[in-house]
């Protein structure tokens, strides 16, 4: 059971400002049924540009509903420019804190507010916009969004990033990339694990094979699994890595692309830039019999 503060429980059982303003100045929508939470925020301004009314509708768990309710309480009566500065941390603090794994609920609140403000300022669609490159395909999280939760909340691990914006919480295929973003933003503070993998470091044969197996287990297999496929490490000979694709991947017409863009790319990224990959087809066929 989650340990929710009394304030979270209060805002869940007695949510404030539920509903939809019929003639709003700004509408913001974020999330989806597939993601497990979604929020629709509508607000109305007075003639001085203050938020005189704000309402929400939320699909989600207790902390999602409480975060939405808290957000509306925070911004009600605020001038729009000030509301635009509200962060997910403000929402979490207002509630006396949220469980670490639920921090993404507060981020959803901030995203909906941003979308609603963008909608008011004109041009923007009322849906929360994906800006820039998508890193986490499972939950549609962009590089920009990941950068933002890292710097606003001083995050240092991939797990934290997943808790805050869900990125990396589906197939897990983007965890390596998230690690890199953390490193870039946090610099030296960041995960030592990734640092140890920096290029140029001399590995013994055993270390190299272990690192290849680890990279396959952590970085490659989850992505293939998401599509009903799989992979086995067959052999390592110098810089040549021999693997066999299994399941759906084995019959896939795009197997060559998977090999180059995923398997080889990840191994080059995490093990050594000199790595090249070959597929062992015969053994795969034999095992599948």
């Amino acid at each position, binding site marked *: 059971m*989650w340990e929710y503060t009394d304030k979270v429980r209060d805002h*869940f*059982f007695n*949510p404030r400002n*539920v509903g939809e303003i019929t003639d709003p100045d700004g509408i913001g*929508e974020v999330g989806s*049924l*597939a993601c*497990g*939470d*979604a*929020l*629709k925020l509508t607000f109305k301004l007075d003639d001085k540009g203050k938020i005189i009314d704000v309402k929400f*509708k*939320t*699909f*989600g*768990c*207790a902390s*999602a*509903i409480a975060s939405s309710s808290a957000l509306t309480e925070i911004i009600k009566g605020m001038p729009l420019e000030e509301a635009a500065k509200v962060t997910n941390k403000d929402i979490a603090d207002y509630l006396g804190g949220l469980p670490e*794994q*639920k921090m993404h609920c507060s981020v959803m609140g901030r995203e909906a507010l941003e979308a609603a403000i963008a909608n008011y300022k004109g041009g923007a669609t009322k849906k929360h916009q994906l800006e820039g490159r998508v890193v986490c395909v499972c*939950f549609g999280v962009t590089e920009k969004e990941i950068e933002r939760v890292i710097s606003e909340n001083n995050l240092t691990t991939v797990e934290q990033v*997943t808790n805050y914006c*869900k990125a990396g*919480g*589906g197939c897990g295929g983007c965890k390596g990339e998230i690690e890199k973003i953390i490193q870039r933003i946090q610099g030296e503070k960041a995960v030592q694990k990734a640092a140890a993998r920096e290029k140029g470091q001399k590995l013994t044969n055993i270390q190299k094979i272990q690192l290849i*197996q680890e990279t396959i*287990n952590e970085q490659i*297999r989850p992505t293939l699994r998401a599509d009903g496929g*799989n992979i*086995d*490490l067959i052999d390592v000979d110098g810089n040549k890595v021999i693997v066999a694709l*299994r399941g759906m991947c084995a019959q896939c017409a795009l197997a060559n692309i998977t090999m180059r863009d995923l398997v080889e790319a990840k191994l080059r990224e995490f093990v050594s830039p000199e790595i090249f990959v070959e597929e062992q087809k015969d053994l795969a066929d034999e*095992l599948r*019999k």
Partner: protein
Amino acid sequence: MKTIYFDNNATTQVAPEVFEEIKPYFADLYGNPSSMHTFGGQVGIKIRQAREKVAALLGCDPAEIIFTGCGTEGDNTAIKGTLAAHPNRRKIITTRVEHPAVLSVCRDYENLGYLIVELSVDKKGRLDLAELESHLDDNTAIVTIMYANNETGVVFPIEKIAEMVKSKGIIFHTDAVQAVGKIPINLSTSNIDLLSISGHKLHAPKGVGVLYVRKGTRLTPFMLGGHQEGGRRAGTENVPGIIGLGKACELAMQNFEQENKKVKFLRDKLEKGIISKCSDCMVNGDEENRLPNTANISFEFIEGESILLMLDRFGICASSGSACTSGSLEPSHVLRAMGIPYTAAHGSIRFSLSRYNTEQEVDFTIEKIPPIISRLRELSPFVKK
């Protein structure tokens, strides 16, 4: 506030008779069953009797019963012990809807180069036996398929599967944690080689389980050490747990039919009551082949954790397959394997009953649920008025 406990697939109340039976073994009768003195020896006798009671419920020989620490240990021992005993076979067949105690073990072997086949299920959670048959070959070391699903209660045709697997000379293990005590199992007429049980799912305390190992089944021990359990599971016995499990099996046997009839009546009443009073909800799983105690209901457009918290305020305990309750970001792997749409998977609630539930509790719950559902739907942006 009175607790209404509808979460018996998670754990059950220790039966009062069981509690009475095991009390002395926490205090006065603390001897080690392996000891040579009468003081320890009397405990050894109780363990032998407990073994006989478990064997009686399962219809097997007491020598085929190994006491373990939990259901998970039984599953680990069965799979790892079989693979170690058949090192030349490199394939494992299981299903996509197994409990993590089986699924994570199998997937771990994948990292060691084993080939894992995870059988799929249809939208009612049923297996395709022809698919299973097509995968059975000389390379297969073990087939491990659960007896009944913990989330939906769907019961697989285990006897048929065991027969099919046995005919190819392959070891068959079943995780029967949810089935024992709820549906009749008779191992004397079955082809099952290995079967795991967890004590706390049938009114015994936590921390005890059983692995049934058919005579003549090659199994490499998982826990090494002393000679306990005939050298098949080392470690000083959990004496109160084992004696409690023996008593719990005896109780399950005594009133088997009546009790399960009553539980089924209550489950059906609860399920029908909820379905008839709430719109946009549905039962997950194969209603024809289901445990008598389990109801898994999806409420569309709302989220499971919210429902559970609202129920909790009335003292009603249930569980959910939503992402938020699992601590992960994806909803239940079982419901996803069944192809239940996300709209429904996130809002799934499991009610699992036991012999201790009453009709008043069911009526109370039927009355409390509809306002909770409509309250949460008022909050949901996906419900259009």
